[in-house]
């Protein structure tokens, strides 16, 4: 009896009552706007993101003294329009996040399924590798990659893959262990299904919810990592605009042109916040057991 009551009790303690089923509309709207802006960048952006115009350099945003309506968020040292760069930068953030998450998440999914399903030595070897990856500051490897392979989308995607696969693998494995013991898996074995078929047909659909939640929860993380790598000069090389690079470029002009760093950084924060809140909601909605992730 105590067990039933404890379960009720925990769920009540987990979070304040009543704010669970609410869809985070604000987050949802921010994400929708971000995606639209990224897709429609060439149509929306008032200027070219790379066009330089030295006479217009370091114009403040429109609402500050000296700002003009032509450049709503002002211009940088080379006279490029900050708003346009921000809009194109959204593309970079989303593309990197998509590529890296699909690669890293995909590898994590496969490793997790194989490890959990096969068990035994394969499992302990793979999980040791996961542990090793998780204890190690993998961002250093990302920097190493950037220097040896040269910066670019490919490098940054590989780097982030290295960074996240282990997180996915560990959680997916846990799920697989739970699914594996259910009757339909045993039944499939009895019917003579191969291991590969069982994994693909019976296991994958059952860990898909978890996988979706993990993907969503990691979007924000990946965007921050990408921005940090760009900030450190190991991201997408200029002149392609990326938010991290913009913050970095603006750093030396912080005293005279605060908007150059503050604006793109605020954009990163807002977008990451929106994705994280959305991910939290999705997790609670699809699979509350994942709260520890």
């Amino acid at each position, binding site marked *: 009896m105590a067990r039933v009551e404890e379960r009720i009790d925990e769920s009540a303690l987990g979070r304040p009552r009543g704010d669970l089923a609410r869809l985070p509309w604000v987050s949802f709207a921010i994400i929708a706007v971000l995606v639209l802006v990224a897709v429609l960048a060439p149509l929306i952006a008032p200027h070219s993101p790379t066009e330089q115009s030295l006479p217009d350099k370091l114009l403040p945003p429109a609402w500050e003294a000296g700002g003009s309506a032509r450049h709503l968020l002002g211009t940088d040292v080379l006279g490029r329009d900050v708003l346009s760069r921000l809009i194109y930068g959204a593309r970079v953030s989303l593309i990197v996040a998509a590529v890296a998450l699909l690669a890293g998440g995909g590898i994590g999914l496969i490793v997790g399924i194989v490890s959990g399903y096969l068990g035994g030595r394969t499992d302990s070897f793979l999980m040791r590798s996961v542990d090793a990856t998780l204890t*190690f500051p993998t961002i250093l490897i990302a*920097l190493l990659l950037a220097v040896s*392979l040269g910066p670019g989308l490919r490098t940054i995607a590989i780097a982030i893959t290295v960074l996240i696969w282990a997180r996915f693998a560990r959680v997916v494995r846990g799920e697989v262990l739970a699914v594996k013991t259910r009757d339909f898996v045993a039944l499939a074995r009895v019917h003579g299904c191969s291991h590969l078929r069982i994994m693909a047909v019976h296991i994958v659909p059952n860990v898909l919810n978890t996988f979706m939640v993990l993907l969503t929860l990691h979007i924000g993380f990946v965007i921050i990592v990408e921005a940090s790598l760009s900030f*450190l000069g190991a991201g997408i090389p200029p002149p392609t605009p990326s938010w991290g690079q913009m913050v970095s470029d*603006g750093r030396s002009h912080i005293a005279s042109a605060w908007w150059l760093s503050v604006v793109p950084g605020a954009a990163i924060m807002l977008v990451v916040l929106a994705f994280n809140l959305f991910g939290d909601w999705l997790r609670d909605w699809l699979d509350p057991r994942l709260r520890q992730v």
Partner: protein
Amino acid sequence: MQRFVLRRLAQSVLLLFVLALIVFALARVSGNPADLLLREDATQEDRAHLLRALGLDRPIHEQLYLFLAGALRGDLGESIRYRKPATEVFFERLPNTLRLLPLAMVGALALAIPLGVLAAVYRGTLVDRVSGAVAVLGIATPSFWLGIVLIYVFSIRLGLLPSSRMGGPSHYVLPTITLGLFLVAGMMRLVRSSLLEVMGSEFVKLARLKGLSQTVVIWKHCLRNALIPVTTLFGVYFALLITGAIVTETVFAWPGVGRLTYEAVIFRDYPLLQAVILLKAIIVLGVNLGVDILYAYLDPRVRYA
């Protein structure tokens, strides 16, 4: 206990070896490592000379042997930018980072533990919601940007604190905040959730049944149990600080090993970067090993297991 230490030591050494292999391989994936070392205006003779000097004209397994043997002697190559052994550059800078990290760690703990406890004890109330919101915001804030905003507000606008470089105590304030806040959000939530878990356990009920007050039970019985996961993660936090220091030291022009990493990246100084990475790895793994051993001494369950 001895076997435990030996096994963990062996694991760490193996991990380092794998890392060394990665470093070795990456230098050769993109072509000849000599090209990473040469200046743009180098001639063919310079190149051939360098290849011979570094043994890069030899077969790959001999190169690996040379690399590993050098690494074991502490020779990880010469920094292109500083024109001296990379390890030497690293150890010159290390003390500056070691002045910053403990401050950030202590600051983060001093903030995260009380906040986490408050959030757990007053769960569901305004205190909990505000601390939850701060945590969510903290996780979403890129620390390089936070550093820049702090500089703008406190150094440029208010003129209260120095914005960069090392110096008197006031120079430590902003870098410590930037580096420490990086940890606070996660730590706070961890303290909160593990304290909530402990507060629901049977021994808490038994303690209350003795007639102890809620306050005594929380601070005496719960907190010590709730802090076990925090101590276990000390190694992870340390690794996060080492990583976070790269960005923080870059923003504040702090002459430590974090800033050195950044320099190695932007000047494409591969020998320096490989030295920095391997040495940082040794430090992180060493700290992790130390924490595990210490932890085994602290927790009676692990100690007698």
